[in-house]
């Protein structure tokens, strides 16, 4: 039983992350009066890239070759160590919020290095922008979950989920503030509107896409897949840390099954939110982004203030 649960926990994120990306794209297409590609298209894209040949710049160093594996490995291990549907694995991998945040920062750091590695102008551009944003996002991201950590007296994500699921409804106000802060950070970290346009072809406006512009074939597939994983990781965190209702606290089959269904429903709602947001607003001017990220930080601080 435990082994089955382990397998589900480890594969849930990488197996379903392309699907949720496809769902967001489908909803966006519907908003634009288009039929849009099938929700399984991201799987096909990744599959296609895995079968393709690679071109690697002569000037690229080992960082360029190594970064995709590292980034992918980070998303897989974080995917395996956050509360998804069961609290069985409360003390196994990297369950601490601070570890999760800085593991992600570690992968961002390598992605930015890889972007600059090949020496193309766009890569350097993307990296510089990504690092600017990452540094500004860190505050909001870290503190939004620290709000919950204050409530739970622990930075262990499973303990936080546990505490919040038994939190009385009237003390939820700070959690909502923290959630708003987290949402802003989520959009910035995963390269969505109003920070970055994931579907743009304009090299000059790109952030995340500019960094991976030099990649092709298998390594690009890994990076695309990692980006999808990261998106689903953030959605899961948003769904399960802030609103942990339904997570199975036992290994009872019915509980687990219900937990999985609720997980998909909650993540689906967040996908809908992202898609609606992307369909209704324009991207912000680059120099206005810090304002928004600062708002995220302030919201977290207010939430902490409400608790203390």
């Amino acid at each position, binding site marked *: 039983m435990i082994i089955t649960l382990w397998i589900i926990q480890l594969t849930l994120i990488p197996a379903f992350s392309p699907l949720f990306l496809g769902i967001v794209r489908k909803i966006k297409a519907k908003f634009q009066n288009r039929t849009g590609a099938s929700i399984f298209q991201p799987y096909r894209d990744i599959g296609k890239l895995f079968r393709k040949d690679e071109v690697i710049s002569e000037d690229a160093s080992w960082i360029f070759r190594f970064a995709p594996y590292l980034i992918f490995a980070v998303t897989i291990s974080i995917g395996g160590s956050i509360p998804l549907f069961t609290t069985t694995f409360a003390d196994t991998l990297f369950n601490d919020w601070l570890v999760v945040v800085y593991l992600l920062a570690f992968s961002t750091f390598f992605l930015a290095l890889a972007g600059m590695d090949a020496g193309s102008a766009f890569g350097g551009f993307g990296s510089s922008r990504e690092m600017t944003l990452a540094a500004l996002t860190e505050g909001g991201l870290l503190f939004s979950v620290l709000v919950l950590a204050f409530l739970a007296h622990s930075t262990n994500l499973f303990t936080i989920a546990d505490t919040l699921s038994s939190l009385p409804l009237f003390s939820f106000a700070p959690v909502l503030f923290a959630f708003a802060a987290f949402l802003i950070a989520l959009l910035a970290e995963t390269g969505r509107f109003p920070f970055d346009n994931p579907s743009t072809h304009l090299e000059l*406006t790109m952030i995340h896409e500019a960094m991976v512009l030099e990649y092709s074939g298998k390594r690009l597939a890994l990076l695309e897949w990692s980006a999808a994983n990261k998106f689903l990781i953030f959605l899961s965190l948003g769904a399960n840390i802030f609103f942990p209702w339904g997570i199975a606290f036992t290994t009872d089959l019915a509980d687990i099954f219900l937990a999985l269904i609720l997980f998909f429903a909650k993540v689906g709602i967040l996908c809908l939110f992202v898609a609606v947001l992307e369909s209704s*607003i*324009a991207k912000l001017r680059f120099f206005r982004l810090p304002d928004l990220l600062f708002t995220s930080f302030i919201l977290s601080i207010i939430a902490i203030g409400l608790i203390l």
Partner: protein
Amino acid sequence: MTVDQIREKYISKKYEVKQDGNVLSFQVPPEDIISVCRQLYFHPSLQLKTITATDERKAGIGFRILYAFGVPKENIFLVPFIVLNGKEEFPSLTRAIHEASIYERKIRSLFGLEPVGHPNPRPLLLHENWPSNIFPLRKDFHWQERPAEANGTYEFRKVEGEGVYEIPVGPVHAGIIEPGHFRFSVAGEEIVLLEARLGFTHKGTEKLFEVFPLGEKVTLSERVSGDSSFTHSMAFCQALENLSEIEIPKRANYVRVIFSELERLANHCNDVGFIMLDTGYSFGGTHGARLREMIMQWNERLAGSRFLRGLNCIGGITRDISDEMCGELRSALTTMRKDFSEMIEISEDSSTMLNRLEGTGKLDRQIAADHGIIGIAGRSVGLEHDARKEYPYAAYNNFDFEIAMENAGDVRARFNVRVKEIHSSFEILDQALRSMPSVKDIAADKKVEFRKNSCAVGVAEAWRGDVVYFVVTDADGKISRVDVRDPSFLNWHVLGHAGNGNVVPDFPLINKSFNLSYSGYDV
């Protein structure tokens, strides 16, 4: 004003004036040309329409440089010209009239005539692999000759300083667009200098105009800039009609108005959509593209060509619009106009979108005026020029509409000019479709013969700005030179000015708000 009054008002008595259709030409000694042009350009402030050259060495004349100035409302063009007797240089006008610079550089590159006193006579259009001593528009250059590669280098302007770096973009881009190279010198995210390098689609169009048979010349003019096919061929046909005094049937003039407004509508809708899409506002982007597609499908139905090709002929038009079709089109346009107004209303509620447009890519009015900027870019800084009003051609005299004006010069202003022009196009179309003259003829039934040793100007307002064709005939009445001036030819030179000081991620938006033609520039 009659022609005599115009002559009296603008041209000094000491010059002998020759009238050819809509052109009043007079020879000026080379030493006087600067003061004559200056007089025309600044005192009555006539618009400089084009400067071009002809190679008439075979006829024993030598090179001629012609300067075309337009007299608004009169549809008359004053063309002072100089003859270079055996010399290969001419006095440069650039220090007196800045916008002359680009024309003189073009003449220098393609004819090998040196503008003496030009402050910056860099080559234009021709690639550095083209030998610098071969001049394609000279008559002794055969159009099929392939010179050896010269392996020259192109020098970009350099910016130096701490933290300043260069980003090369293009000529191959990520989207399906034309080729052009942009060199950004950037400090952080701010653009310090932007240099656009064009010429990658140089097709030798002006040379081909001299080579192709007459019927194919019209087809060629449709290929100068694909999205303005109809207006280009209309301007060219108008020049030829001026050269041959052919009478155009009334109905053909109305049909020409209808098609050129449909062309404007399709392109403006597309641009309005794309400007919004470049800010990431997908709602506007989708609906702009949808409206354009609806018009393109109407084009296909009416003309058999989505880009309205094969319609203009010398003396009229090849395809009529039946009265039933007129009615159907009118009701379809009413629906489209309603959709469009609704779409703009919703979009203008989006503060994030408008915030991206406002203050971005601001073009200074004086810079625009000095570069002779026309069309949308000109009207967005308050330069009130519209060939439909100034040189009323086809049936434009019969319709009531306003020139769309804005003053701010930013992306928002260019966006607004387009929105206003879409509304005025709908109005013109409605008026034209209601009042189509009920004659059968759509093309003059007469053999085309051109005046000998003559010249003519054809002007038409394409959606970007006015297109100018300058056509010269030789002693046999054959077309010996066609000069094409697409609006993009002038407007490309201020894109850098509009981009400076903005952040790099805003550049695609600024570029889109101009949406200039590479092909029209490179001819």
